[in-house]
């Protein structure tokens, strides 16, 4: 996978968490993932088309997501519905932020409507076959990961 895409998702994740929740997310070393298991309790999932094809999942632990929501709203909201709302919206915003960064490199990327998956053992089925890349992020409130599998169309 082109490192430009990895960097866009890293920068997008850091930017969105900082602006929306005043949370500093520190990226770790990306690694290959060869199974379908999500690396979190709740995942937002979104597909891409245009200059690239593929998909992105953002997987959060419940505790990390609850803190993100709390920081965003200034109040605790720990219902499952609110967590799913947050996972979907964060995925939407981070993918949008990354797409805007890639637009400056003349890549036109369209995104689908985000969906949400949850449960301790939920699966991430990417659009593309083969291993995805996990970008782990540390925050003061726990980890989340970007699970991405995209490729150039041409």
């Amino acid at each position, binding site marked *: 996978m082109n490192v430009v895409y990895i960097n866009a998702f890293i920068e997008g994740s850091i930017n969105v968490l900082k602006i929306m929740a005043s949370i500093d997310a520190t990226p770790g070393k990306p690694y290959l993932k060869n199974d379908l298991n999500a690396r979190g309790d709740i995942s937002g999932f979104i597909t891409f088309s245009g200059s690239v094809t593929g998909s992105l999942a953002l997987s959060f632990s419940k505790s990390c997501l609850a803190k993100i929501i709390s920081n965003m709203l200034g109040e605790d909201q720990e219902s499952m519905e609110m967590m799913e709302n947050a996972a*979907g*919206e964060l995925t939407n915003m981070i993918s949008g932020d990354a797409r*805007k960064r890639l637009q400056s490199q003349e890549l036109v990327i369209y995104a689908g409507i985000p969906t949400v998956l949850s449960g301790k053992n939920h699966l991430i089925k990417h659009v593309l076959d083969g291993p995805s890349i996990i970008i782990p992020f540390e925050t003061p409130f726990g980890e989340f990961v970007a699970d991405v599998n995209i490729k150039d169309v041409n």
Partner: protein
Amino acid sequence: MNKDISILVADDNEMMSNLIRIMLEKNGFNNIIEVRDGMAAFNTVKAQKIDLIIADWHMDELSGIELLKKVRADVKISNTPFIIVSVEGLDVSIDTAFAHGVNDFLSKPFTMEDLIKTVTKVLETSS
């Protein structure tokens, strides 16, 4: 600025709707109505006086841009100030919104300052 004005927030994502409401309330706006889709937003604007619409681009039933078109096409409510909120910060999306008469476009992610600055500008230029 009169902060008793009625502001309609239309977003199918409850968390984002709550976030916008909370940001507005923290800045003294205390008459905020939340709806979850564009058609409910249109019906609300038709049924009662709304001074500002803040709508997400992507919504079920009627998207933010479709809601904008319907509002601008209805002579009784066509002058209602309108802000679209979206991650669609790509130039073509912004151009589309302005071509259909949106007053301003707020790109996600945004801070409370971004939101209030946009709301203030739109209300001042629309009054």
